[in-house]
């Protein structure tokens, strides 16, 4: 296998596929290496696909990509143990093509995306684990070592898109080990049921879908969220919490998932479904401050490997596709100019990211992870207070409304104090603005 390519892409997730597709379309000789049996076999996501990032790569993807349902309704639930209070946003606008986002099943979707990569001319090899980067005497990355016999392959540049754990970047010293406070563990199950049942249960028509995001007691006091997504004939249900919180208590992730599924607001939605898979995945949620240096001599990092996730807006795969595409565009520009793939020239990648929504959005919320870590009342006290307030106001029991308001305000003051309430409001305003 002692061949030389223009570029090697490690990993066949959204970042790796976007990079390999873009590079191959530009006529570069691309090798993409994936450790799973097939592209997608190692990949886990909720999963919501935001159309925009893919549309910029494959404008007519809607005609052939395996999409589940387009989302017409978003529900946000703030939960205590017995109740939820929340918002719904549903619009007929979302029913009109072109649709803005879809639920997908990653194993199916990734296989399709990889087919597009291969059609574009990249060589994709699966069932091959990259075990390390090859470097020359000066430290420049010149290829990768794989676990195949004679498994060294060489290239002008390597795009590291091997996912959140990025063993490659860590072994090479490009990135430090993940800190428990910078990463969430999400566990999920997929439950199959007839598509008519999904549609009647969620009040949607054929092809339409609903997403439910959950926060509050659903994470048992830990920083995190739950989610429920409608697929064509299945439902994805999951919950994610920060590892720094998970390791400080005694509840296992699968017990946490069982609690989520058993919540009185969730359980009826899963009724009659058949569970067909249980998955777990880390999500890099450290935000802007956790982003490592993503370029160097002969290498670029894209996607989860570079911690590119906007946890506030539950966006990740679109950042992965965008960073993958921009890594590729940087390489293409240099190749066309005949410039060397060294750190000085590849730094253009970071400037591209700075100028687009990826870094702009992540910078906007840079303080949010720290604020939520230091203030777990947002996941415990407030959900209980707002649900309690709703319950008090909506229970008709002969108590006059002014007395009920007083009771509610007294509850808030007792649990958080006046200064606590004002302080919390200020913290949130500062972090979100």
């Amino acid at each position, binding site marked *: 296998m002692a061949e030389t390519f223009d570029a090697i892409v490690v990993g066949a997730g959204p970042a790796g596929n976007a990079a390999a597709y873009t590079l191959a379309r530009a006529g570069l000789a691309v090798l993409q290496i994936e*450790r*799973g*049996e*097939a592209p*997608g*076999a*190692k*990949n*886990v*996501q909720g*999963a919501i696909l935001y159309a925009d990032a893919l549309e910029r790569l494959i404008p007519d993807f809607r005609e052939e990509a395996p999409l589940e349902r387009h989302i017409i309704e978003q529900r946000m639930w703030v939960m205590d143990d017995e109740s939820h209070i929340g918002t719904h946003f549903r619009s007929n606008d979302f029913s009109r093509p072109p649709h803005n986002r879809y639920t997908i*099943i*990653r*194993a*199916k979707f*990734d296989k399709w995306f990889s087919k597009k990569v291969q059609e574009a001319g990249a060589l994709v090899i*699966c*069932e*091959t*684990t990259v*075990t390390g980067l090859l470097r020359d005497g000066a430290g420049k990355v010149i290829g990768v070592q*794989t*676990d*195949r016999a004679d498994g060294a392959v060489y290239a002008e540049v390597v795009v590291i898109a091997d996912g*959140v*754990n990025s*063993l490659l970047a860590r072994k090479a010293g490009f990135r430090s*080990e*993940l*800190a*428990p406070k910078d*990463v969430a*563990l999400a*566990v999920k*199950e*997929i439950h199959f049921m007839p598509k008519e049942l999904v549609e009647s249960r969620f009040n949607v028509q054929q092809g339409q879908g609903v997403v439910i995001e959950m926060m509050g007691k659903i994470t048992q006091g830990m920083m995190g969220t739950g989610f429920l997504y409608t697929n064509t004939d*299945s439902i994805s249900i999951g919950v994610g919490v920060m*590892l720094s919180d*998970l*390791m400080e*208590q*005694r*509840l*296992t*992730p*699968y*017990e946490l998932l*069982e*609690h989520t599924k*058993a919540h009185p607001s969730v359980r009826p939605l899963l009724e009659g479904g058949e*569970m*067909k*898979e*249980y*998955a*777990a*995945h*880390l999500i890099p949620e450290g935000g802007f401050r956790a982003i490592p240096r993503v370029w160097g001599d002969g290498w670029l990092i894209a996607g989860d490997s570079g911690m590119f996730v906007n946890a506030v807006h539950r966006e990740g795969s679109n950042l992965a596709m965008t960073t993958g595409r921009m890594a590729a565009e940087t390489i293409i520009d240099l190749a066309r100019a005949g410039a060397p793939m060294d750190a000085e020239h590849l730094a253009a990648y970071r400037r591209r990211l700075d100028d687009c929504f990826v870094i702009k959005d992540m910078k906007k919320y840079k303080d949010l992870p720290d604020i939520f870590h230091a203030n777990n009342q947002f996941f415990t006290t407030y959900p209980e207070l707002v649900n309690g307030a709703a319950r008090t106001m909506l229970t008709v029991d002969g108590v006059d409304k002014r007395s009920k308001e007083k009771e509610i305000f007294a509850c808030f003051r007792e649990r958080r104090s006046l200064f606590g309430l004002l302080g919390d409001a200020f913290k949130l305003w500062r972090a979100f603005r």
Partner: protein
Amino acid sequence: MSAGKVEEKLFQNRYVIDAGHPHIRIVDQARCQSGCRQPCLVCCPAGCYTLDGSEVVLITDGCLECGTCRVVCLARNLEWEYPRGGYGIQFKFG
């Protein structure tokens, strides 16, 4: 399904087991015993870490390859690699 039965969940998954080649290894059991709170026992979503007496036992067959154990092992007491190409969990849906 009863709460917390992880085996019943893992039973639904598809694995290609690389018999005799576990991809994660506890480096030094003594380090697990010297004051470590053993978060691996709680945090692993596949329940791969159990106690045999006081000894931490790792069986990687049900591993979901998420990386949690490595991140929470602050003693850096794990040798953690991905399985060889083609082995390990193969997600049907992901």
